[in-house]
């Protein structure tokens, strides 16, 4: 499959009369967009805000981050199963508003989380301090159940991203990235001497606030399956995960999966990229055993000699990660894991809830318990009170002057386990 991502560089965003892109500046008709987004019986209203790099702004609690896109050539549309009808994506051309993102907020539950600081020390820890953000906040109906609330916020974000993306349909991209991968029989013939590598892509799937969707299907209900890397890069995977901001994969992360990007980059040079297997992180032990058995078997079936495994979340999924590693290594498939750590605020505790000596090649994307002091910001979008109860925060975290002391777990994307960022945990 061959996918072209045509990137239109967005250099500024502002509200205005008509939604369009003029010389890289995205103008958003906020009135029109609000009407579109508020078309949901579960919502009372929708607010829109802008947050730009370097501004003295804090967004909290962030639910999801999404990159606006539109499909201009080839089958399918954006966010299949949600916005577009279900049809295989991953080929043809998709246009991307590059350098910007839709950020959704909303306290669906009392302990929700997710901080994006657009400047200051916290900004270094999140990739979304560098994007021009349209922040969407919703007011739900009084007493709206959490499931419906989560669904409403998820849909609002996807709709907003699709709406903005459509402004790029007729534009000429500033650059075009090409992602292409043949089937594994062709690959093996083409690159007989290169090591065959697969990617085992674990998706958080434990229930409310912890779900991930593939073509609209709740991934806890799947058996591990093969997916083309270009399908992932074309928006087939959508996040419904709102907990543990540091190591949840936002939809933006899925759309820009860095492991897939890197493997495609090295394909035909250092390695032969054989395919992607998606797997889940379920609640029951029988599911964990079944999924890891099945995923490892698929990796083996496609003939991979090496694999990268990325985790999402921590604690419970550590068990899935370790099972995947053990089974792959026991099949003779050389494995590298990507995970974050929960080594305590002093960094002295055991990092993972499970372990195996077979995990001899692990990338650590950082200790999520490390504490950071975030000074007060002039403007807060969302609800600062949330800092006290969010996953990485702790009681008393919010000081009278508006500054907060939190574990970096509270910062969106700080220890992303796809390896999106440069943070690293080291032993001393």
């Amino acid at each position, binding site marked *: 499959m061959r996918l072209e991502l045509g990137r239109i560089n967005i250099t500024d965003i502002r509200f205005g009369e008509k939604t369009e892109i003029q010389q890289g500046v995205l103008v958003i008709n906020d009135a029109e967009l609000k009407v579109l987004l508020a078309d949901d019986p579960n919502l009372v209203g929708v607010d829109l805000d802008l947050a730009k790099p370097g501004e003295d702004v804090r967004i909290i609690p962030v639910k999801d981050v999404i990159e606006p896109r539109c499909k201009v050539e080839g089958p399918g549309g954006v966010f299949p199963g949600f916005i577009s009808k279900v049809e295989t994506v991953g080929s043809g051309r998709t246009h991307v508003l590059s350098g910007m993102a839709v950020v959704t907020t909303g306290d669906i539950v009392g302990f929700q989380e997710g901080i994006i600081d657009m400047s200051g020390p916290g900004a270094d820890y999140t990739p979304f301090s560098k994007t021009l953000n349209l922040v969407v906040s919703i007011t739900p109906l009084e007493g709206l159940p959490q499931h419906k609330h989560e669904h409403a916020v998820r849909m609002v974000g996807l709709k907003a991203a699709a709406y903005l993306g459509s402004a790029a349909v007729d534009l000429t991209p500033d650059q075009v990235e090409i992602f292409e991968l043949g089937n594994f029989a062709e690959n093996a013939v083409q690159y007989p001497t290169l090591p065959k590598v697969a990617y085992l892509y674990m998706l958080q799937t434990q229930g409310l606030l912890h779900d991930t969707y593939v073509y609209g299907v709740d991934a806890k209900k799947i058996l591990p399956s093969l997916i083309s890397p270009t399908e992932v890069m074309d928006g087939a995977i959508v996040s419904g995960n709102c907990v543990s901001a540091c190591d949840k994969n936002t939809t933006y992360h899925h759309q820009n999966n860095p492991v897939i990007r890197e493997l495609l980059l090295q394909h035909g040079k250092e390695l032969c990229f054989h395919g992607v297997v998606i797997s889940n992180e379920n609640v029951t032990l029988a599911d964990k055993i079944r999924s890891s058995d099945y995923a490892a078997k698929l990796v083996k079936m496609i003939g991979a000699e*090496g694999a990268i495994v990325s985790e999402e979340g921590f604690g419970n999924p550590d068990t899935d990660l370790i099972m995947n590693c053990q089974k792959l290594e026991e099949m003779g498939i050389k494995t590298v894991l990507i995970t974050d750590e929960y080594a305590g605020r002093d960094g002295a505790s055991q990092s993972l809830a499970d372990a195996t*000596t077979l995990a001899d*090649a692990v*990338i650590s994307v950082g200790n999520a318990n490390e504490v950071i002091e975030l000074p007060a910001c002039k403007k807060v979008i969302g609800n600062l009170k949330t800092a006290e109860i969010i996953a990485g925060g702790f009681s008393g975290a919010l000081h009278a002057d508006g500054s907060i002391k939190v574990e970096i777990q509270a910062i969106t994307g700080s220890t992303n386990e796809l390896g999106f960022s440069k*943070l690293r945990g080291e032993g001393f």
Partner: protein
Amino acid sequence: MTSNGKLRIVHYLNQFFGQIGGEEMAGTTPRVQPGPVGPGLALQQALGNSAEVVATIICGDNYVADNLEQASREILALISEQNADALVAGPAFNAGRYGVACGIVGQAAARELGMPVITGMYVENPGAELYRKDIYIIATEDSARGMKDAVGVMVKLLMKLIRQEKVGSPEEEGYLPRGIRFNSFAEENGAKRAVNMLLAKLKGEPFTTELPMPDFDRVTPNPPLENLSKAKIALVTSGGIVPKGNPDRIESSSASKYGKYSLEGLSDLTSETHETAHGGYDPVYANQDPDRVLPLDVVRDLVKEGVIGELHPYHYATVGNGTSVANAAKYGAAIAADLKAAGVDAVILTST
């Protein structure tokens, strides 16, 4: 600072390296000598002109081991009198009690006096396991033949600590990993690092994992006994239960031996007959009724009831407290050989 502008360094040594005497002088109480002593000369040489070993504090290993808190308080008082800029302890190589002494003195100086501290030990020294989280311990050889190298590495890191420079990784600086995790920003993102690591692993090239797994020493269990009522069972403990008076003088920590004791004619251990040698837990309940740690009474009952075939007429005891893994494994192997020779089928192994 000294009057000529040099940093003031205090050096801690045991009775042996402090040139007071051998094991017979291990009870020596803390004392101060001006200037460097013994290995202090090598230390002074490595320090060069920027710092001066102004005093050496010497204390017997047993004195520290037997009076941990009091000894460390006394030594701390002597250190603080010296108005020192930093403390160097040892290196202790593989000497267990000396290593623990260097550790406890170093920990106290760092904690109470806020002083840069450096020591050196062999990786298996029990002091290393106990104190590596609290102070920097340079990895040394297992004996004093490694003195010269060790002192050089120790001084290099000590100067960094004094100057409050950033301390590098254990590999760069030569200290034993403290098991403490810190974050930093790498040159490349995690995905790129993962692909590079995988390529190295696939090619068989060396690579370093970023998160070492905890060290398991897993033993596959033997198949279960087929018939307990025909089996010969032995009692073994690392909880220190020994005949009253501790005839073999098994140490209360970092045991250098194990003991083998007859159970002939005994059906119940009492405060009259047995006690614990262990210094790592509150001994009151074990001394009141040693069966609580070494369950002889119930095993005799079970033999009488026919549940267990017979009891091996000896029990084996050592003290797990601070005993190095390598030593513990050695004692275990020796005990196992003895048990096998005696036709023992299974062991009840109790700890504390």
